């Protein structure tokens, strides 16, 4: 006899192990190998400790003050140092943390900001059409006004885009509220949801908002 008696339970054990492994691997892959994990949460250290929390949150500077191309271009540009200097030539004018900015403004040496949000090259995302049509910054970038250093908040996977494209009514808001990241229809959650539903449908109808899910919407 080659095999001892305990081997008789081997098939069962192996089966159970395989089942358990499968049960572990599948969620592990879906959690750790998808953009929800690999992208969301990315928070690189930036050359200048610029705080969106202070500027956009506490001081209430509108997003478009710095990202001024966002309504016109596919690209939400980063401001030139000259934009920073509009204020910082007066405020904190000698702060050592702003040395790079002053240098950049004076010598036109670009500040090497680390890119946080990015879609693959074959995806043609256009900021202007979203922002101008009532999709708020917060929908993709999260509460940037509460972040000291910008963090990649959402997954930016294709299904993330599709979720909204399939149901724009649930995400659309008045165009003047687009950059108000903390804006709600109402402070009451249930009421807010109801208003979103009613008004969202109305906007989608009135503005002829399309629910584009075919390839041509994003890929060219």
């Amino acid at each position, binding site marked *: 006899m080659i*095999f001892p008696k305990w081997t*008789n339970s081997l098939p069962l054990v192996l089966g159970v192990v395989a089942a358990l492994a499968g049960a572990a691997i599948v969620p592990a892959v879906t959690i750790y190998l998808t953009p929800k994990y690999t992208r969301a949460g990315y928070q690189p250290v930036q050359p200048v400790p610029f705080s969106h929390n202070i500027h956009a949150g506490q001081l209430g500077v509108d997003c478009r003050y710095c990202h001024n191309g966002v309504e016109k271009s596919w690209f939400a540009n980063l401001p030139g140092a000259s934009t920073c200097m509009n204020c910082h030539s007066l405020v904190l004018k000698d702060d050592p943390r702003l040395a790079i900015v002053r240098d950049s403004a004076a010598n036109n040496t670009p500040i090497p900001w680390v890119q946080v949000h990015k879609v693959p090259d074959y995806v043609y995302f256009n900021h202007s059409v979203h922002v101008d049509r009532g999709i708020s910054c917060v929908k993709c970038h999260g509460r940037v006004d509460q972040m000291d250093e910008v963090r990649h908040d959402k997954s930016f996977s294709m299904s993330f885009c599709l979720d909204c494209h399939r149901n724009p009514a649930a995400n659309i808001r008045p165009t003047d509220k687009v950059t108000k990241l903390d804006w709600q229809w109402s402070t009451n959650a249930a009421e807010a949801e109801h208003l979103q539903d009613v008004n969202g449908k109305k906007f989608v109808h009135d503005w002829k908002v399309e629910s584009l899910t075919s390839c041509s919407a994003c890929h060219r």
Partner: protein
Amino acid sequence: MSEKVYGLMAEFDSPAAILHAAEKVRDAGYRRWDAFTPFPIHGMDQVMKLGNSLVGWVALAGGAFMFLNVVGLIWFANAFDYPLIVGGKPMFSVPMTFVPAYIMLIMGGALGALIGMLGLNQLPRLHHPLLDKKRFELVSRDKFILLIGAQDEKFCATETKSFLESLGGTHVEIVEDVE
């Protein structure tokens, strides 16, 4: 290492012999016994009153499960979750669904049959007391062995042995279960 009696085996020379012996064992009121043969012996099923194998039902269940799953998957993937206009054809229709669902029915049926067979036979079972017996190796060749299990209510090492010998069985031996 403890040894336990597993049963008594007796050897027969022809299919007819073991079939006759089996009939007598059955008639003698034994319940825990089995016949080991190099090939299935026509009529043994009836002698042992095995009835209809459940394998067929397992296969049917496997096939039906796969079929319905594939139909559901296709409807979910192409018509519900992400409907796209493809070639001017409907999102969900019988022709596009039937072929893959049907072929997966075969897959499910086959898997069901194999798994059912293995499961009902409690295979794989790499350790078996009989495999220790030198004479048992002839079962896969040209001998036919009848085994009466020790757990049978009527089992009695000496009586059963003589009973088996009376049936014409040769090489009647005790089979031990080695831990």
